[in-house]
């Protein structure tokens, strides 16, 4: 399987994942420049204390705004646990002017085809990006 990440520790995978996601976004937008990868990107909530962090963001320097936001979801139960964060992410994306940023959950291949995941992503308008495990 190409790029199997199963032998790598969580720390190593996390280090790698950012670069892979930046590459993924660029493959969809080959003419975009001035892009930065930001880890643990803060998204505001209704109150200061409600600020949360999403795993990875692709930030457009020229427009000073994120153009893609990715959250790692390793199991279907963690999808349930992260539902509040993901809803907050959706609300945040709706507040941004101009085109909506890409919203995606990043999941291992072993769960990427599960109907619960696919149904959820369709309903909430999130893309599913998979990685080999």
């Amino acid at each position, binding site marked *: 399987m*190409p*790029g*199997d*990440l*199963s*032998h*790598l*520790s969580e720390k*190593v995978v996390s*280090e*790698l*994942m950012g*670069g*892979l*996601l*930046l*590459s*993924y976004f*660029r*493959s969809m937008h*080959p*003419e*975009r*420049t001035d*892009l930065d990868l930001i880890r643990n990107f803060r998204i505001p909530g209704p109150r200061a204390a409600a600020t949360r962090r999403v795993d990875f963001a692709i930030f457009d320097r020229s427009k000073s705004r994120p153009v893609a936001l990715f959250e790692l979801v390793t199991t279907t139960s963690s999808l349930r646990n992260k539902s509040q964060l993901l809803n907050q992410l959706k609300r945040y994306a709706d507040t941004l002017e101009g085109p909506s940023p890409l919203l995606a959950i*990043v999941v291992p*291949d072993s769960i990427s085809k599960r109907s619960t995941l696919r149904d959820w992503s369709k309903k909430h308008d999130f*893309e*599913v*990006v*998979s*990685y*080999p495990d």
Partner: protein
Amino acid sequence: MNSFDQLQRDAQIAQRLWSAQQEARAEYARARRRYRTSGDPVHQSLADEKYSLHRALVEASAVRLSTAWEVFLRNLLAEYLSRRPVSFRRAWGFQANSVSVGSDAVDRIVTEARQPFQDLNRAKQLLRYYLGPDLFSVGKKVAVDTKPVEDLVAIRNAVVHTAGSPTRQFRNRLSTRKAAHVYLTSRPGPVGSLPVTQFERLLTDLLATAATLYQRTWARPRPVP
């Protein structure tokens, strides 16, 4: 810092070069579009410049990653002999009760072996000699899959020796007639899956191979594959 941590650091440098090539490629695409819409030859020149930069950085990424692997193997040998000098004593037939192996000794070993780390087979031979015959395989059972390294070496050799044109080794190993920089930017899997380029596939596979090798180096007993 152990040899695997150092490899990760070096691999990040290769990944940054890769990111820089993507930026150059995007600038090339923009300049080309401007030339097509305006006909202004300035944009054509800029596009040519950016494409050259993109290609150079693609090839540099692969060579840098290949170097990172060679350095990892050398560092692994040094780390092992430093922590387990008894293997050095056994290999060299010393009778002394205590032996310590410094960097000079490792330099000497590597020089005597004629700088083996660029050649995977010679590197394996040297590592098996000091780290144990069961390091990479047990009988016919493979414990550490080095195929990603073999792919990377074929690419590196094509870049270094034939300016990226596919050598026979390259064509046979990778089943492609593409030039090295084109192959490295091509997609290895379906749309919507990571990684999106062959270079990144090699990067993650190389780290996985190194992680397995590193774990196996220290494991006692070594698991049977």
